[in-house]
């Protein structure tokens, strides 16, 4: 299946391949995965894609992305596909869905929310709509939209 272009990077024996990441978002996806300096990772950015024009790909050796991480990836890379590899074979294709609950990743935009004012209060958001993406703070009911979520996860970069 691999095209010549994808062969820049060798196949991995065990781990995860995250494909169809919107071009330029791979670095942010890595942020969610909290990779270590010693991890073996292949990062391919802005390669041609039939479906998407351009896309990014990440291959991580010896790490299987779990359900929670997969769902968080949807927040910034909704088109991504995640394949778990064991002994060079795809053993699982993870179906991505936007998480119902996001804990500790997004901050509440309401400065008077308890989550911004108590060291122990962790922000928790529940999904109230997928298209357009909207999430609500379970503590103060503040609703944040996709652009705010992106802004927070991606930081100041565009």
């Amino acid at each position, binding site marked *: 299946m691999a095209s010549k272009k994808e062969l820049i990077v060798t196949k991995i024996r065990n781990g995860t391949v995250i494909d169809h990441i919107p071009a330029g978002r791979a670095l942010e996806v890595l942020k969610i995965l909290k990779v270590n300096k010693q991890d073996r990772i292949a990062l391919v950015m802005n390669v041609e894609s039939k479906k998407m024009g351009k896309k990014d790909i990440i291959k991580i050796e010896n790490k299987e992305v779990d359900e929670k991480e997969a769902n968080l990836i949807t927040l910034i890379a909704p088109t991504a596909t995640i394949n778990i590899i064991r002994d060079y074979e795809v053993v699982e294709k993870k179906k991505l869905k936007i998480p119902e609950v996001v804990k500790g990743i997004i901050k509440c935009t*309401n400065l*008077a*929310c*308890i*989550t911004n*004012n*108590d*060291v*122990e*209060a962790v922000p928790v958001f529940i999904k109230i709509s997928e298209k357009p993406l909207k999430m*609500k*703070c*379970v*503590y*103060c*009911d*503040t*609703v944040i939209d996709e652009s705010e979520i992106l802004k927070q996860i991606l930081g100041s970069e565009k």
Partner: protein
Amino acid sequence: MRDLISSYDLTRNDFEEIFELADKFQKVRNAEILKGKTVALAFFEPSTRTYLSFNKAAINLGASVIGFSSAEGTSIEKGENLADTIRMLNNYSDLIVMRHKFDGAAKFAAEISEVPIVNAGDGKHEHPTQSVIDLYTVYKNFGTIDGLTFGLIGDLKYARVVNSLLRALTRFKPKFVYLISPPQLSARKEILEELNYPYKEVHDYNEVISEIDVLYVTRIQKERFPDESEYEKVKESYVIDKTLVSKMKEKSIILHALPRVNEISREVDKTPQAKYFEQASYAVPIRMAILTKIFGE
């Protein structure tokens, strides 16, 4: 129901049971229902009537009361976080009534606490026990809450009683709810999106005042406006005076969670529509009923 954090914690059945208990507690002032129990009043933010009415409600039920009525002079001033204060209060009490300046503080406290938490106001978020008092007053005057037209007027954005009342009304079938406010103080969109009854936002009460059965007045606070001249302009157009009352239905009622400043002129106090003092008189029996219900479950 272990905790009462939001009006959403109450079903219609809960409201009806509380109303029934409150009827009883208006006649029987002293009951020994909570004898041996301790109610902690944790008011991190100052309050007069909510604090006193919960205090009186707990005493009437035979409970002991401990607590503080402002953060001043407590370990909170030394920088103790809310979670630690709640853990500490868990050692001394069987239920905590709390008021706090931050939105969502009561829900957070409930997650930490081993004893029930009753939200007596968290920032600009909710104040559910006030809504029970509000709707009880409506019920006492009309015998029902269903089928009535409500008008909420004033600051609908920052007034926590508004959020709680709008949510409490989802448990009933109001005919219509008018939300009357200056555009900069209109009700929160996220609250409006949840409502299951017809409502409309209007800026001029003259359009709707003759239709309203229950006019619920909230104070417009100066500090909500970036510039004082804008506040002065708005303030004038949302004062309830006799001229306004003369346009209202004969059987309509005016409610206010109090304290009022000048949003209802004193001349209105003597009109048959003015029910805000009656409303305030229900604070103790309703809070007795709520405490009884929580301990009963």
